[in-house]
């Protein structure tokens, strides 16, 4: 990624990613998704549509669930970002991840990181959601493989046992 005039408009951002203070030079128009994947090598965050529909690029930004394809990276300056790698490293979603495995909630796996972030976010806001609340809560994350039933089941199981962690 060198040499072209289009790359000259660079600027610096500082933010916290998965608990690590991070500063880097980025292209002014870069999306948060690209910075995470290309600059930081955090490829667990996936791109499905690039227009905020599918939720595969879901990350937590200051505790809010966002589509990182819709966030200009500059907007993340000073923010705290959590990706699937962060959740995995500090075991904060271990119970949820295990439930995904057990219930068959991950098939091809491409929506899975975003789906886990969305489910984690839902459970942190509302530890005991009803099935309908789970269905609504995950409706911003598309999955083409599972038909959702086993995902809802995994989240419901975690809610029942209170063992998201």
């Amino acid at each position, binding site marked *: 990624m060198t040499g072209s005039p289009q790359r000259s408009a660079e600027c610096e951002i500082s933010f916290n990613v998965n608990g690590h203070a991070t500063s880097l030079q980025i292209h002014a128009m870069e999306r948060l998704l690209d910075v995470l994947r290309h600059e930081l090598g955090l490829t*667990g965050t996936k791109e499905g549509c690039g*227009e905020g529909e599918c939720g595969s690029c879901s990350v937590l930004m200051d505790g809010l669930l966002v589509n990182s394809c819709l966030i200009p990276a500059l907007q993340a300056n000073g923010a705290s970002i959590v990706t699937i790698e962060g959740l995995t490293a500090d075991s904060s979603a271990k119970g949820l991840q295990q439930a995904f495995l057990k219930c068959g909630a991950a098939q*091809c*796996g*491409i929506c899975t990181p975003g789906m886990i972030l969305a489910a984690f976010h839902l459970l942190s806001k509302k530890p005991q959601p009803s099935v309908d609340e789970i269905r609504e809560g995950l409706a911003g994350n598309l*999955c083409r493989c599972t*038909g959702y039933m086993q995902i809802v089941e995994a989240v419901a199981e975690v809610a029942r046992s209170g063992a998201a962690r």
Partner: protein
Amino acid sequence: MKNSNIVGASVPRLEGRDKISGQARYVDDMKLPEMLYGATVRSRIARGTVREINFGSEINWEEFVIVGPADIPGRNCIALIDDDQPCLADGVVNHPEEPLLLLAHPDRHLLAKAVEAITVEYDSLPAIFNIQESETLAQVIWGVDNTFKTYLIEKGDVDAVWERADYVVEGEYTTGAQEQLYIENNGMVAQFDAEKGVTVWGSLQCPYYIHKALMKLCGLPADKVRVVQMETGGAFGGKEEYPSMIAAHAALLAIKSGKPVKIIYDRMEDMTATTKRHPSRTRHRTAVSRSGKILGGEIEFTIDGGAYKTLSPVVLSRGAIHAGGAYYWPNVRIRAKAVATNMPPHGAFRGFGAPQSLFALERHMDRIAEAVGISALEIRRQNFLKTGQTTTTEQVVHEEIDLDKLLDRALKLSDYHAKKEKFAADNQQNGGKKGIGIAAFLHGAGFTGSGERFLGSEVGVEVRADGGVRVLVSSTEFGQGTKTVLCQIVAETLGLRYEDVEIAQPDTQEVPNSGPTVASRTVMVVGKLVQSAAIGIRETLKASGKIGDSYSAEEFRAACQAYVEKNGTFRSIAKYEQPEDVIWDEEKYRGSAYAAFAWAVYVAEVTVDPVTYSASVDDFVALQEVGKVLHPTLAKGQIIGGVVQGIGFALYEKVIWENGRMQNGQMTNYIIPTSADLRSIRVHFEELGNVHGAYGAKGIGELPMDGPAPAVVNAIADALGIPFDSVPLLPEDIFDALGDGTAREDVFSSPREPGGRENDDRIAAA
């Protein structure tokens, strides 16, 4: 040997840990040193010739690698059934989004601007965009009559039945294009080395299809082409044939630039340029007795293949063979035809023609029931295929299938009768209308006819130096659980723990050609071969005296290690041999079309909203017989996933075409079901067992795509009394079908006759 009962247990998905932690590596996660990004310049018109290609002055083109047809070292085609589809259109364009030129550059932002800076001037030709325009030869764009392929299936003497028919029931049914919409867009990385040749890594289903295509395109021998599958984020048939095109493009750029090249489609490119389910039209004319027995029928099944032949003949074949469904036809004539249009080629999508022809049949069965004056259940019971009877291709059903029993169980699970009665009563009230519908059907597993014999699939099980066992297949995992189930089979066969068995990542340099991962063939066909190969390992060890009849996992490992130490490589290969009772006449299209069928009865319950006219599925019962269920959690996941795609096909997913180009190539306006759209999908299995597959397993992946659309539309017809004959059925389609305001008011407000024979009153009202 111990029986460890691994088969039948829901062991952890083999690559599951990587998937839940974000560690699984998909093609877009790959980065190679000095890698360039590649992009495709595509045609903006449907048909014509290219007059001039202009490169805008705002771009410094010297920085770019540019590939045109002249840069192709071998043949300019994507080898598949025929070699008719060019890799890059050479002056003549036959559909929108046809690839013309390829660009590569280190900066992907600049690349997008460069694609926009290229303008192409064309001399347009008139184009055709649907089955009717193709049939009437408005323009001849393919051969002499726009026809890629026809089939004729004939059984008995259908011309003699019309005279003795009490009823002759006709109907015409259509289905629309459907986008596979895997969440991971297509992508490939290619690298070229003068010595090693071309290597591609990508999101794909069929490594050896790509291998074959690249050999021809690049003019390279087999050992100079290597195809490696990366983790693949959904496929559903959509990554069966088109990845060969993308691999070809990436390879050409890599050859010309000498650098690795990555091509990743964005969502719109993926949706507008790559394949979709074939739009179809089915015409039925059926002779029926007073009691509702089918005496015979004529079925015309036609699909729109798009601009090139690609896989259309095979899709057509499966659709034609499934057109008679799970019923006994004493006399039948099925004429099937795939026609050419100036649309991007339609291709493989889960079900492969069967969801189209079965939608038509299962709607038609309800229509026959109305004509005869019997229930939707009775018409099916009267005509269900029974063991010992023959299918439309005169294949004798040997399986001990009892469809009456399957139907009984589905009715009970869905509480069909009580609901039917309740809905009829409740629909008297103003407001939402509820309905319940069924579909009974079958799906043939594996390649059709002699297809498996021609494929001659090969698999291997090898023992590594450390005594571990590894499965070698080109079968790919893209969500279904291929790796998990094949490892289960080998572990069970060898009496090992599931954890003791590994499986190689599909890489044409490492694994034999076990055929494509399509046609619900992996567990049944490849699984059986893997089982045979594993038995080969065990028997060799036994013959060498290294193990006895029973052994522990540790003893087995030690024996393997000792064998490798003494003899070097230890690999067992199994090759497909067609069972003797599988006899197929390709000429007459007659005989054993499939080694086994899966059978199902689905029941859908819907509500149609009186204000928005949208239909939603409140409850869905999916009951099927798929032989032995090797992994209950994965099997259930296959069924639910397929059912939801089927519901999408019926109610949500509509491709809007304009001059052959998809206009809604985005997730914002091509709508697939979300978790909020689906309440309850209940999955149940019958297990009869089957001799063909490993441990009695049959194919499962495609079956659940076939039934939902007709079950759902039958339910909507039940709710509203309108005989809808087309999918997708969006709110605006329901609105339009209800005619003027008065008719709509009639359906949603006025009282109707309670109870009674299903459908009669509503048909009269319509």
